[in-house]
């Protein structure tokens, strides 16, 4: 089904905003990134994506937009926990010190994406495989690699390692 960007905006804005605020935990930044998501979608392939729902597709773009922002903020040495993100906990308890440490210190973009889907969105491995369009086996393999990296940054007794056991 072909939808115009206005229709996508009307239907999914709130959902995408919630996705952004959960990742960056700052309402003002989330608002900006949410708009950026729809602008990217409008310039992009929304009429042509085969086999993906508009919701899934926008969700992926939003995730990429937010993770890019987080990575850039981290590269600029702006503290993700300081005044740039003034309301920790605003979108829920999902924003953690550990998440910001991982973004700043160790994870690349695809690992951040996997981490966000697993621990911020709390998706099951099956739901993650649907999101990333890969097999469940691939998700498990990638989680194993992620577990090692997370443990190196946060220590062996970090709260995520056990949840990555498969």
């Amino acid at each position, binding site marked *: 089904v072909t939808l115009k*960007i206005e229709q996508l905006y009307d239907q999914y804005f709130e959902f995408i*905003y919630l996705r952004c605020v959960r990742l960056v935990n700052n309402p003002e930044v989330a608002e900006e990134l949410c708009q950026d998501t729809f602008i990217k979608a409008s310039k*992009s*392939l929304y009429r*042509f*994506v085969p086999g993906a729902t508009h919701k899934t597709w926008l969700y992926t*773009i939003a995730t990429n937009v937010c993770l890019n922002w987080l990575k850039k903020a981290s590269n600029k040495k702006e503290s993700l926990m300081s005044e740039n993100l003034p309301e920790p906990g605003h*979108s829920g308890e999902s924003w953690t010190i550990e998440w910001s440490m991982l973004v700043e210190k160790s994870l690349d973009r695809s690992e951040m994406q996997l981490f966000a889907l697993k621990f911020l969105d709390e998706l099951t491995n099956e*739901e993650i495989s649907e999101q990333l369009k890969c097999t469940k086996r691939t998700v498990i393999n990638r989680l194993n690699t992620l577990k090692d990296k997370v443990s190196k940054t946060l220590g062996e007794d970090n709260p995520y390692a056990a949840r990555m056991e498969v």
Partner: protein
Amino acid sequence: MKVSKMKIDEYVCGLLPNEEKDTVVKALAECEECKAYLQITQMSFDKARAAKGRGRERVLASSPSLFDRIFKSGFQLSYAVAAIVFVGVGFGLRQMQLQGPENVVYYKGAESERVFIKSVDDGSVRPLAGDAKVGELVKFKVPVKAKYLLVLALQENGVVSNFNPDQSTKSIQLGSSTMFDIPGSIRLDNYSGQESLYFLYSQDLLDFQELKSVIEDNWGALSAKDFGSLLEANGVTTWSVHKLR
């Protein structure tokens, strides 16, 4: 019973189908963590409603789809589809692959008049109708269908690059004759995996960085194969160079 935060977001936004709504309602009745998240999400939802009005103008004023611009060349879809040179391991009869211990490129296909191999030994150019070796150079001659052409290479792992002999990041301007001999060549390297070349015709200059950004933004929602199907379905000539070790 617990449900994901994404499901709760969908519930709050009224995007869940009925059969899934029941599951979330049940979880919200039983799961304290879910209830707490629901409360926070409802507050964020109110902020989202306010933000929605503020952002509308900026979003709707953004420029049109990149693909609208590519297809301004307006050539017939049927013709474009016929022009597809589809070369791939496991995808058709016309194949190009590296095989055997010497990494030999083997090609069989009907479109060989458009693809040439330049020998590294003596510089001679021959149609790609047989074997080629790693290190040899592949050259292309393409039909002129529009004013500009941009050749994009996409590896299966999402790495995007452009093929422009002038080192420019913009489209190549095509001449007035019916066929265009693209200057420069692509060296067959030891890359193990699929690399696809997309020939994007347009009436306006296209910028490689813009295309690259589109692909990277969509990566995850689109695989390399999806992207290829997408382009082919919309009339972009595709050349896949599959290399196996």
